[in-house]
C-alpha cells in the first residue's frame, strides 16, 4: 500500500509538526483534547512530495532552474521570473488522478459529516516552521474541483517571490521538503471572541474572562472594538456581565472580510446567552485541564445550521502570550488615539 499522506485531525497531535506542519498539528492536538475545532483533514508534507514527483514537477523545475546556473536565481528580477514561471507551471499541472480521487472522497466525507452539500472550507498552508505570511491561505472554497485547485495553489505558493528570495539569501535549497495543508470547515460566526482561563491583567486564576462581539472574532483579537466582557468565578459560578455598545461587526465576504453595521436591535444586548456562557466556560476549563496551564482561547458560535455550535479555533498557554499580546493591543489603541488622533478605538 502506498504511504499515507492524508490525515483527519483526530489522527494528529502536537508531535506531528514534521509530518503535517504546525497549524495542522495544533488542530490535531485540540481535536485530541476533545475540543470542538472545525472538522477537517490535513495533507502531509509527503503529499506535496508525491504531487511534485508523480507529476514530474520536481524534474521540470530543476530543469528550469538550470538556466540560472550553479548559483541559482540571483537578484529580484530573477526571483520574479522563477516565481511566475514555477507557480504557473504548478497551477496548471493536474493533480495525479489517485490523489485527486482520495481528496474528493475525503471532502465528500466532510460534507456528509457537516450535513451540507459542497460545504465551504478554508484551505490553509501549514509550514513546519513559522513563516508568517509567506504562503497563501484561501477562504470560502466550495466543491470538489475547487478544493483540489486551491490545494495546488497553496502548494504553488511555496514559490512566491518572497519564499524564493528567502531561500536564496539563506543558502537553502530551492526545492523544499514541502508544506502541509489544512482543509477545514468554514465557521460562520454569529458571535466570536476570546476567553482567558485566568484574569489576563490581575492574573487571578479563580476567574474565567470572556470577551466577545457579533460577527468574526478578529475585531476582538485585534482590539478593534470594545467587546462585551463577562467574568465568571470558577468556584461560585457567579457571572458578571459588562455590555458595551457594538456598532460594527466583521463578516466574511466572497473572499476576505469586511465591516458592516450591527443592526440597532443587537447593538446594546449581550452577545452571548446564559446557556452559551455556561458551555463556553465548561469547554474553556476542559482545555485548561488538558494542557495543565491557563489558556488563551479564540472561540466562535456558529448558528448557520439552526443550532448554536461552539468551536475553538486557537488555544495558547497564557504564560507565554499573556503580557505581550494584551500589551500590544493596548499600545495599538494608544498609538491610534495619541499619535493619529483617532476618535474611535
Amino acid at each position, binding site marked *: 500500500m502506498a504511504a499515507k499522506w492524508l490525515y483527519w485531525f483526530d489522527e494528529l497531535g502536537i508531535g506531528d509538526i514534521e509530518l503535517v506542519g504546525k497549524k495542522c498539528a495544533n488542530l490535531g492536538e485540540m481535536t485530541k483534547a476533545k475540543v470542538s475545532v472545525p472538522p477537517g483533514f490535513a495533507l502531509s508534507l509527503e503529499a506535496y512530495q508525491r504531487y511534485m514527483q508523480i507529476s514530474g514537477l520536481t524534474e521540470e523545475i530543476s530543469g528550469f532552474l538550470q538556466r540560472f546556473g550553479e548559483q541559482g536565481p540571483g537578484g529580484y528580477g530573477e526571483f520574479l521570473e522563477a516565481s511566475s514561471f514555477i507557480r504557473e507551471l504548478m497551477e496548471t499541472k493536474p493533480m495525479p488522478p489517485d490523489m485527486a480521487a482520495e481528496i474528493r472522497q475525503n471532502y465528500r466525507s466532510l460534507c456528509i459529516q457537516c450535513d451540507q452539500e459542497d460545504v465551504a472550507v478554508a484551505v490553509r498552508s501549514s509550514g513546519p516552521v513559522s513563516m508568517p505570511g509567506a504562503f497563501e491561505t484561501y477562504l470560502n472554497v466550495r466543491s470538489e474541483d475547487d478544493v483540489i485547485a486551491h490545494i495546488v495553489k497553496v502548494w504553488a505558493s511555496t514559490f512566491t517571490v518572497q519564499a524564493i528570495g528567502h531561500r536564496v*539569501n539563506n543558502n537553502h535549497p530551492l526545492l523544499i521538503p514541502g508544506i502541509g495543508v489544512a482543509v477545514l470547515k468554514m465557521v460562520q460566526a454569529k458571535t466570536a471572541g476570546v476567553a482567558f482561563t485566568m484574569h489576563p491583567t490581575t492574573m487571578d486564576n479563580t476567574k474565567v474572562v470572556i470577551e466577545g462581539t457579533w460577527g468574526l472574532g478578529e475585531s476582538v483579537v485585534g482590539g478593534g472594538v470594545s467587546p462585551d466582557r463577562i467574568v465568571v468565578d470558577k468556584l461560585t459560578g457567579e457571572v458578571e456581565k459588562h455590555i458595551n455598545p457594538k456598532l460594527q461587526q466583521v463578516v466574511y465576504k466572497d473572499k476576505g472580510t469586511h465591516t458592516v453595521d450591527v443592526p440597532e436591535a443587537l447593538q446594546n444586548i449581550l452577545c452571548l446567552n446564559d446557556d452559551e456562557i455556561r458551555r463556553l466556560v465548561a469547554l474553556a476549563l476542559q482545555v485548561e485541564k488538558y494542557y495543565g496551564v491557563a489558556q488563551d482561547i479564540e472561540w466562535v458560535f456558529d448558528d448557520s445550521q439552526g443550532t448554536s455550535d461552539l468551536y475553538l479555533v486557537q488555544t495558547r498557554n497564557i504564560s507565554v502570550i499573556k503580557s505581550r499580546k494584551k500589551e500590544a493591543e493596548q499600545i495599538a489603541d494608544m*498609538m491610534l488615539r495619541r*499619535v493619529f488622533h483617532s476618535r474611535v478605538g
Partner: protein
Amino acid sequence: MDSYDITVFEFDEKVDLEKNPAWFLDATHSVPPWTPMFGWSWVNYCRHGMQWGAEKLQLPTCKGWDWRLKDGGGYLALLLVEDEEEIRRREEGFRKQLIPFLEDYDGMWQGYVNEMLGHYQRLKAFDIDTASNIDLMDHLEDAFRVNKRMWEIHFYMMYLVFGVFILFESVCKEMLDLDDTKPEFHKLMRGFDNKVFQVDKALWQFAKRARELELAEILLTAKPENYIKEIEAAPNGRQFMQEFRDFLWEDGWRANRMSEFNLPSWVEEPSLALVNVQKFLVKGGDFDLDQERQKLAAERKEIERSILTKVPEEQRDWFTAIMQLAQKSSSFSEEHNHYFDLWTHALVRRALVAWGRRLTATGTIGKPDDIFFLIPDEIYKVGLNPVMHDLKPVVARRRSEWQKYQQQENPPLISTISLEEAMQQMIKSNDPIVLKVVVGSFPVPKTELKADLYGISGSPGVAEGVARVVLNDADLAELKSGEILVAPSTYPSWTPVFPLLSGVVVDRGASLSHAAIVGREYGIPVVMNVFDGSKRIKTGQKIRVDGDMGVVYFIDQE
C-alpha cells in the same frame, strides 16, 4: 533649459502647485544639490518606499510624501488622507500591522537586516571588473532593485519606530510631566550599543594595531592621500592594510555623504577611514564609549526605577513595553543608516563606477564621474554598443546645471500659502517622520535665561569651549580636541569625531536626529533647532552650551 530634464518628477510650478500648495526642501539630504543620477534615484525609489511603507502600514492620516526634483534639490509634499471613512478603514488596517511589530520588534528588525545583508552579499560577490557588459547591465538593475527594496523596508520600519517614540513622549508628558526639555528624558534614552559604535570601536582598535605594528608615526605625520603608499612601504605595512581592507569589505560600505553617489566609499578609498583611525591616535587613551556606556546605562536604570514608581501599578506593563521600544529608536535611527542607506548607496555606486570606467574607455562619456550625470535608462540604452553613442553633450549640459545649482541656495519652501498654513498641513498629517525629523519642536524662547540662542535640548549637560563651525566634510579636518561643533546638521559619517567634542550646536533637528543620539551616548551636551547658529556663531568664538535648558550663550560677544 533650466533643469536636468531627466524625469517627469522635475518640479513644474504650475502643475505641481495646483495639486499641492506647499513643497518643502529636504535640507537634511539634498543640500548641497544632488547630481542627476542621485536625484533621479531619490525621487523614484525613496518616494516609492515612503508611499509603499505608508500604504502597507495603512497609516491612517497620511499616504507618505510626494517628491519633486528642482535645481538639484529634493522637494516634498504630504499626501494627506482627508476622507473620514477612509481614515477609519485605514485605522483598522494599521492596527493589524502594528500588533506583530509591538510583539516582536527585535525579530522583525533582525529579519529585515538579514534580508538586506543577503542582497549585499550577492552584489558584493559580483565581479565588476571581469563581467561582460550584458552581466554588468543586469548587475546595475539588480543594485537599483535592492535600492528600491531598501527604501520599502526603511520606511515601513521607520514609521513604526518613530510612531512609538512619539507615543512614549506623549505618555511621559501627560503622566509624568517629563518631555525632551528635561535632562531625565534624555538620560532615559542612552547607554545603548549599536552597530555604528561597533564600527567606531573597530577603528579605535586599528589605532591600537597601528601602534603595535609601529605604523602610528606615518598616520600622525603623513598627508591622508599618502597614507596607503607610505604604510605599504613600511615593514608590517602590507599586513596592516590587508587586515584593514578585510574589515572595510564587511563594514566599510559608506561614503562621507550618505545621500549621494558621487563620493567614494571607504572600500574604494581606505584613506577616508584611516583619517578616523588617525583621530583616535591623536586623542590617545581607551575607547571612551565602553566605560561611558556602563556609567550611562547604570544611570539610566536608576531613572527607570524612579520613574516606574510614579506609574500606577496596573499601567506599568504597557508603560515598560513602550519605554523599551522607544529606547530602541536611537539604535534604530543609527543602525538603519549603516545597514540601509549608506550600504545600499555604496553598492549602487560600485556598479555605476564600473559603468563610468567602461563608457569612458569607449569615448561615450568624457571621464568616469560623468556617469553621475546620466540616468540608468541611458546606460541601459547605450550599454551593449557604447562605441556607437556620444553622451558627452548631454553630460556637459547637466554638469553645468549642477555646477550652477551648487552656487545657489534652494528656497526652503515653495508655496502658494503662508509658512504657518504649510506647517499646519504637516502637523495634520500626524506623520511620525515629519514630526520627528522634518518639523522638529519649535523652541519656545525662555527669555528669562537671557541666552543668545534658544533651541531645544538634544542631550543634557553644560560645556564651555571654542566653537568650530563646520559646513561640510572638509571643515571637519580642522577640528581640534575639546572644541564645540556648530553645524546646520550632523551626518552619520561624522560620528567618529564626536569623541573629540565637548559639545554640539545644530540649526535643525529633534530628539531622534543624529547629533542628539550620538551626543547622548558620548555624554556631551547638544542643543538643537537654534535655526541660525551656524550663521551667527563664528569659528574661534567662545560659547557655552547648556544642554539641560536647550540654550547657547556667547562668552565672546559677536
